């Protein structure tokens, strides 16, 4: 197997023939064509080679997103309006946070179906403990009433810095759920699909039970800033009136952007600059061979699921703060379709061993743009989901095609 950037242990690992096995996406095919042969190609061969190169490029989805945006903006002028662009960026950040966690799990060859439920339980518990006031008639049937919560809110509700502690609680809870998932998968050798589906069901039900399916309101103002706060806002255009209308002020740098991008940088560093990241690719490519060659597979798997839970908790913080409520039903819709779709579109393989944070960032951007365009097209709301599903299917097929091309070229 060719030695790759992400795979220092590959000299001891036999090549994995499964589709999606780790490869440098731009390497073998290009290297296999000498400059002399390139000159001898016919125009059709050159075009074919160009598309193959584009398809294999790590930035393929970025190019596609830019082309998509430029073409669509011609037909739908509102797409390129500054307000729309800043809006779409705001929509990206929570989705990016959760998709990064899913990317890690997919690189392992696993899947985390409990991310939605993790968001629900962290949103609910975080909301309950930091709430500044709770209505007795609404929450008196909660099992936490009289202990962790009361009419004066949660136990951290009256503390000015209680919201920060609550955020830590939410993150720890995400880590704990990830640890449970990872431990069940490694210790009992259970399928990730089954373990995370079960934990999803349990934690989603637990969140509903804790609040008796009620939302948690009255969250502290500093916490709400995490989902909505602008650090730098801009106004474009001539100032005709002394007061600038709120709708004309564009959020440029926001707290959600900093949080998600910070998480992305951390994840990128972990994947590309640490032995842990290299071990992840190795385990995702061939777990048994990795274990034989000394990679602590079990520990890697547990840590990756913990990171996935952590990312879900970060997304939960952003969503809860943005909407201003702790929500036991958070993540219960088809958000996982969006998350897995964005990761796959970004080049993460469903078969493990392949994926990057950069790709996921581009995948999320593409996905958000796609939704924006579908909405602008005024398609029936019922068709939009079908189109989204179709795009994800195409992305999965592209993944297989890319892998086949790479395998042929290797």
């Amino acid at each position, binding site marked *: 197997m060719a030695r790759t950037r992400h795979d220092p242990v590959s000299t001891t690992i036999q090549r994995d023939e499964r589709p999606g096995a780790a490869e440098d996406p731009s390497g073998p095919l290009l290297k296999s064509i000498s400059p002399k042969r390139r000159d001898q190609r016919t125009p059709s061969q050159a075009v074919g080679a160009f598309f193959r190169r584009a398809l294999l490029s790590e930035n393929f989805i970025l190019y596609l997103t830019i082309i998509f945006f430029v073409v669509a903006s011609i037909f739908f002028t509102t797409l390129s309006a500054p307000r*729309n662009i800043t809006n779409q960026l705001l929509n990206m950040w929570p989705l990016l946070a959760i998709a990064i966690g899913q990317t890690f799990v997919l690189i392992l060859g696993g899947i985390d179906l409990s991310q939605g439920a993790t968001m629900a339980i962290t949103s609910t518990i975080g909301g309950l403990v930091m709430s500044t006031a709770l209505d007795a008639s609404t929450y008196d049937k909660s099992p936490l009433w009289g202990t962790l919560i009361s009419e004066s809110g949660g136990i951290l509700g009256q503390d000015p810095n209680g919201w920060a502690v609550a955020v830590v609680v939410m993150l720890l809870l995400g880590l704990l759920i990830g640890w449970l998932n990872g431990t069940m998968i490694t210790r009992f050798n259970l399928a990730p699909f089954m373990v995370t589906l079960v934990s999803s069901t349990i934690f989603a039900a637990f969140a509903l039970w804790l609040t008796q*399916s009620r*939302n948690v309101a009255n969250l502290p103002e500093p916490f709400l800033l995490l989902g909505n706060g602008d650090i730098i806002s801009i106004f474009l255009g001539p100032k005709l009136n002394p007061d600038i209308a709120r709708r004309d002020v564009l959020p440029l740098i926001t707290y959600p952007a900093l949080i998600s991008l910070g998480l992305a940088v951390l994840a990128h560093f972990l994947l590309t600059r640490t032995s842990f990241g290299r071990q992840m690719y190795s385990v995702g490519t061939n777990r048994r061979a990795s274990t034989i060659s000394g990679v602590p597979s079990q520990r890697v798997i547990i840590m990756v699921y913990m990171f996935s839970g952590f990312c879900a908790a970060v997304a939960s913080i952003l*969503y809860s703060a943005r909407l201003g*409520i702790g929500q036991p039903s958070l993540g219960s819709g088809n958000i996982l379709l969006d998350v897995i779709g964005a990761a796959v579109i970004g080049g993460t393989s469903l078969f493990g061993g392949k994926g990057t944070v950069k790709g996921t960032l581009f995948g999320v951007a593409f996905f958000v743009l796609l939704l924006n365009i579908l909405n602008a097209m*005024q398609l029936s709301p019922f068709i939009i989901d079908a189109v989204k599903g179709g795009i994800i299917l195409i992305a999965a097929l592209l993944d297989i095609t890319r892998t086949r091309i790479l395998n042929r070229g290797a």
Partner: protein
Amino acid sequence: MFKNLRKLSVGAGAAALLTISGAAGVAAQSDITICFGFQDLETEFWVAGHRAITETLRGQGIEVLEYNANEDPNRQLEQIRECIAQGVDGIIIIPQDGDSANTIVAEAQSNDVPIAVFNRPPNDRSAGLIAVADNVSATEQAVEFIAQKALRQYEITGEPITPLILVGALQDTNAIGRRDGFFNVINRYNERYPGLFNAPIEVATEWDAATALANLEAAITANPNVDFIFTSSDFLFPTIRSVLEPRGMWQPAGTPGHVLLAGLDGDATACMLIDQGYVDATGVQDLYLEAEMTMTSLLDAIEAGETAPNEVLLDPGFALTAGNIYFDRSDMWGCVLYDDGFLDQ
């Protein structure tokens, strides 16, 4: 406009919409764009409400941007922000719950876009145009009717009545109001006639038929002597039937084993079942009145240049019962649909 209305498959429904269009009172305004954000249209009520609003607005030459949030309040917030970015003149929403509605109304108003909330009100009713049924009152009227019947049954048999309520998702203020209305009547009768009702059984539905089916099956298996059921929404009558029928408890009024049944919404299925005698009463939300109030108030605000109009537009509701269905059926939107063959489509 008449061409648009012909698209509606229900003639009488169309007639009702004509009334709404007239009442909206704004001449053709092709330069107005309204954003309409809703949740999944899973029940007849929402389908009829969606039609009433979109067809009427488009009939007036108003552009309507539709957004379905698939029961995800976060997505609805994103969609409303998208509408604001597109520079719409006004927004109508059917929110997922009262809490998220507060945030969405605040978002629209802080961006100087007038917003109206259709039928599912925010918890804080001080902001936005809020068209809402008086759920407590409509429920009380419907439950009162079957409580009277229960009292007569109790006086004859001396056996206490076991009531059961199918509760909606309690993040929704409509669900809370309906539950409150139910308990108001039960408690009032128990004070007046001690021993009439056993402790009510509460069955959670989360506004989901599958959840309701599973929980109702369990509740009826554990309490086979239930003889009084109130469902917080009429769309669950088929679910109730599928649980009661195999147990021989699905009987029309006047026959042994009849379970007293009441609901709320006033949909076509409820109308049919009242006709057939299986259902005794339903609290009716006047859907066409609510749609009319929503559109009229929003268009008036746009015309007046108001960016943050605040008003509660109350639909008092009424009860349609086996006793008054012959007189009041034309006022119930579900009967209008039913009489026009809606359930045969």
